């Protein structure tokens, strides 16, 4: 009990005093996961929309693959990315193992199928005749796709939240490809694992609280946007 109370007290001290190390870790977490989410948004929404709007053989197989990808285990992604960028791996020349770039790549791979799967359903759930209606009002193909994406913005926001939530809290891949290097590739989750291992519960709790707060803040913001467009 003492341990927890102590831990929480110390945690608040670290947060309130804007401890430079803790702030650095938080900022890096945001940058890495934010960038990864952004990348996954571009790839996921465009491929998800394309799959939703075209008919081709094997469409169901592709959709099943995307859905499977939504539950991709981070350690498997970590392993895969590590092998690819290992010194003598196929992308070894890039020399990005144990850098934040490697973490962004791994997290983007985790988030992309999540965003893709949700955007696919979002576009598929629009009324079937909406596409024809927009075309009949004189839209070009790209104008039509853009209107559809805007119309599906609420579920797409959910896709962003799910993608970001998935990667900000992910630890396996980040520790494998980032290496948890102090002041360089250490993020909230990897730092929490390490501090807990070392028995520094106070710091671990502080990091845990920040992680929760961060996840809450981002989701709160997005929910705000979502609800404003959906007054009820």
């Amino acid at each position, binding site marked *: 009990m003492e341990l927890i109370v102590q831990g929480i007290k110390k945690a608040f001290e670290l947060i309130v005093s804007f401890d430079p190390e803790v702030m650095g870790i938080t900022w890096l977490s945001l940058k890495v996961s934010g960038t990864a989410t952004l990348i996954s948004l571009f790839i996921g929404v465009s491929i998800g929309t394309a799959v939703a709007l075209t008919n081709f053989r094997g469409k169901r197989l592709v959709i099943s693959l995307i859905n499977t990808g939504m539950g991709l285990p981070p350690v498997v992604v970590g392993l895969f990315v590590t092998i690819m960028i290992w010194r003598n791996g196929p992308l070894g020349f890039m020399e990005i193992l144990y850098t934040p770039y490697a973490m962004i790549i791994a997290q983007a791979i985790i988030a992309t199928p999540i965003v893709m799967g949700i955007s696919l359903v979002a576009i598929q759930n629009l009324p079937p*005749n*909406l596409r*024809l209606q927009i*075309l*009949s*009002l*004189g*839209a070009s193909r790209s104008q039509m796709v853009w209107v559809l994406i805007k119309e599906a913005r609420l579920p797409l926001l959910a896709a962003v939240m799910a993608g970001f939530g998935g990667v900000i809290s992910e630890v396996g891949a980040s520790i494998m490809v980032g290496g948890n290097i102090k002041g360089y590739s250490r993020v909230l989750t990897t730092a929490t694992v390490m501090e807990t291992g070392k028995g520094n519960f106070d710091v671990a709790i502080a990091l845990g609280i920040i992680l929760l707060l961060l996840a809450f803040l981002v989701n709160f913001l997005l929910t705000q946007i979502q609800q404003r467009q959906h*007054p009820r």
Partner: protein
Amino acid sequence: MKSETLIKIENIIVQRGGATVLDISEFHVQSGSIMALIGPNGAGKSTLLLTLAGLLRPQRGQIYFRGQSVDTHAGRTILRRNAAVVFQEPLLLSSSVYDNIALGLKFRRLRHDDIRKNVQEALDYFGISSLAKRSAKTLSGGEAKRVSLARAFAIKPRLILLDEAFNSLDPPTRETLIEDLRHILEETKITAVLALHDREETLRLAQDVAVMSGGKIIQSGTTSQIFNQPDSEFVANFVGTETILEGTVKRSNAGLMEISVAGKNIEAVGDFLPGQNVYCCLRPENIIVSKKIPEKISARNVFEAKVQKIIRHGFFYKLMLDCGFTLVAYITMPSCEDLGICEGSTIAASFKATAVHVMRRE
């Protein structure tokens, strides 16, 4: 003034999942006319509308828009930009009413001022200026329908295609919308093709009618041709000819025929040869009902009739009369009471020789 043919299709075949859903050898719409497509569900009305809009590429056949073949990508784009479809569902975007109506104008990259002018005009036409700032998702069914119509009219298309425009609206809303639409079409002179399934809507809005069934056009012509001279039992039934009697021509002389129907003689106008098997079609509104057989009457056909059944039909009663053959007549509720008609009573039914539309029967 001779009007040009706005759109014409030839030898169109549309298949879906191996089945032919549209098979039309020739169909055209004159510039400025209002054409109704009528027929049962699944007759191919919506498919024809999409084909005319350039939104559906037929497996076979030619489409000509203002004399130009719509075969190339450029041709289809010209057609798509000149035709606007209004679907059964309003299909509004979740933005303001104004932005919804401006949609097609924005696709055309019009100047801001022009967009505002056109949107305002469309809002005024449909009497929905007060809704401009509302969110489209908060509108009632009738309001949403008006917005979707205004959105189509705002782009000033040459051809407007309406799919079951008045479905799922309550009667008063429907009533005013039909009237408004009629005025707007008259004023703007935009050519319109309307898929309808209601006879009354057809009569009120359209000058020309094409009757469809099973992906084919069964008969087309002016509204009065279709309603008064259907050329098949299917069309006759569909346009509300309640009485269709099988008979054989007995005598034919100088445009007047005597037709034997169930042992009785009906006089009708026409010149089929004696011995020809025919259908005699009678619209219920052309049958006059009286208490007794009138002594002086200009109608050539007068029969004693037993009232078999009285069915309430809106503000009318529909009478099923047995004159040896079955006749269907309409009577207003007050006259039904005045005449003291009830099931089982005997009355007289008469109709003119010109009221009988005679069709060949194979």
